[in-house]
């Protein structure tokens, strides 16, 4: 009787808490509560004592399962099995489904269209045939009435000259059979990395202190003196960044860099540069190219100047940026700067 009573008491107590208490996994408050409970509950105290006693024995039993000799596996062999690391700047951020889908669609748009058209061409006659026949088996076993009819039809066709049907060497491929060559994959200019993005916005000056609605700078954008410009960035990892420009003479000039003539360390993962402000376009007339260069480590203005000097038209020279510490990434825009026409009319591109 008393034993049954004792058991019912122990069932009411939370044994999980008791175990956690033994393993110091309770919060200070829970510990206090349990200790208070242990003082009043004899069965729990007894259980605890038993469990504490048996724990080392149990651990020893479980650990006896471990193999006596542990083989040493070579790391080199394992590392060989691993794929080599991807290019200099793998993305840390997975593109969203829609992004990757639209990218995929962009690349394969034409192939997709051709494939679809081909499928239609192939399927239509087959489906027509399928619907005109009674059973699919007949189609394979006995020639259908339609099939019988076709040779007769063809006989009539035979009267027509057939030489165009074969494509002799040197002869132009009939238009219908010409394989569709997809257009070259269009690259978004300047975007090399996916783990971060940079945008450049501008606003045309209308009058003193008045500007047009800001727009994103596209390649070949025409800007005028005193137009406002701002850069915005987003990144998935801490980065340091420098914004520089280069003109058609190959002169490199800084747009944004820190006072120590090094790259600016970004304090937030997204924001604008200059922070909360914008800057004005100068009076330079001609073509310019602006760069946002980022890296995971601080780099100097001298290094960038050296790397970019003279690299006006080509991306090739940018390889010199390899000298920068850390993997660098770059975004670039082409701009045309013009003098504002003397009339005060708002310029239109």
């Amino acid at each position: 009787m008393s034993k049954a009573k004792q058991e019912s008491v122990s069932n009411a107590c939370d044994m999980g808490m008791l175990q956690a208490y033994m393993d110091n996994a309770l919060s200070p408050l829970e510990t206090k509560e349990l200790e208070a409970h242990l003082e009043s509950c004899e069965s729990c105290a007894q259980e605890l004592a038993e469990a504490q006693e048996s724990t080392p024995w149990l651990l020893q039993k479980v650990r006896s399962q471990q193999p006596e000799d542990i083989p040493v596996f070579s790391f080199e062999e394992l590392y060989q099995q691993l794929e080599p690391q991807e290019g200099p700047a793998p993305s840390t951020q997975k593109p969203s489904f829609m992004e990757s889908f639209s990218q995929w669609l962009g690349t394969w748009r034409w192939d997709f269209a051709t494939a679809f058209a081909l499928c239609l061409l192939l399927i239509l006659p087959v489906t027509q045939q399928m619907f005109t026949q009674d059973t699919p088996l007949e189609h394979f076993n006995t020639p259908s009435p339609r099939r019988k009819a076709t040779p007769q039809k063809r006989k009539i066709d035979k009267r027509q000259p057939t030489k165009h049907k074969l494509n002799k060497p040197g002869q132009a491929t009939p238009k219908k059979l010409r394989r569709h060559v997809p257009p070259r994959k269009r690259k978004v200019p300047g975007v090399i990395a996916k783990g971060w993005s940079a945008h450049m916005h501008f606003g045309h000056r209308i009058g003193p202190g008045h500007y047009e609605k800001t727009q994103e700078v596209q390649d070949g954008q025409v800007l005028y003196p005193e137009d406002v410009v701002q850069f915005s960035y987003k990144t998935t990892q801490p980065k340091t960044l420098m914004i520089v420009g280069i003109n058609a003479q190959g002169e490199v000039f800084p747009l944004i860099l820190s006072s120590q003539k090094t790259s600016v360390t970004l304090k937030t993962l997204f924001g604008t540069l200059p922070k909360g402000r914008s800057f004005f376009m100068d009076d330079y007339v001609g073509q310019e190219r602006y760069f946002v260069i980022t890296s995971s480590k601080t780099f100097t203005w001298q290094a960038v100047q050296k790397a970019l000097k003279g690299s006006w038209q080509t991306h090739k020279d940018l390889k010199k940026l390899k000298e920068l510490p850390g993997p660098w990434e770059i975004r670039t825009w082409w701009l045309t700067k013009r003098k504002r026409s003397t009339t005060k009319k708002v310029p239109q591109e």
Partner: protein
Amino acid sequence: MIPNEKKIFEQDYQKYQRELYCFLYEILYSREEASELLQETFLTFFREQRKEIMPQEKKRPWLYKVAKNKALNILRKRKSQDKPLPKGEDNIPTPEQKLYEQQEVALVREVMGELREREALVLRLYSHDFNYDEMADIMQVEKSSIGKILWRAKKAFKKRYQERAQAEASLQPCL
């Protein structure tokens, strides 16, 4: 791109491969399968590291979690095919003084095999010195229920071990 990737990977590998091998062996009792899964687990781990660098304290639970999932898959497949439990290190010659130990190891193995999957797992993790947070993470249960599972597992193990030991009469529990 992780700079010094190979070095970091090697450090992690050297640090965890032995204990992870033991853990896998304890579940599977097969050297071949344990070493195969060990390699698979580390390859998955390295690939994951490339995607996202893991804080050091998360690495060990992560490895155990993946290893556990892979091992349990094999174990379930074995059960569905009704394969007998591998005998472990039978190919190693047994010196006479080790006979008792060998018998006991076999007994514990049988008892562990009789326990519920998660009870056996919690005991193994407990013996590998994981804290409650990590155990909860590996087993994908609430932290608050770890204590309960562990308590039940211990009780069940003790009970079954004593029953078997008495039945065999040659072995006495050390209690």
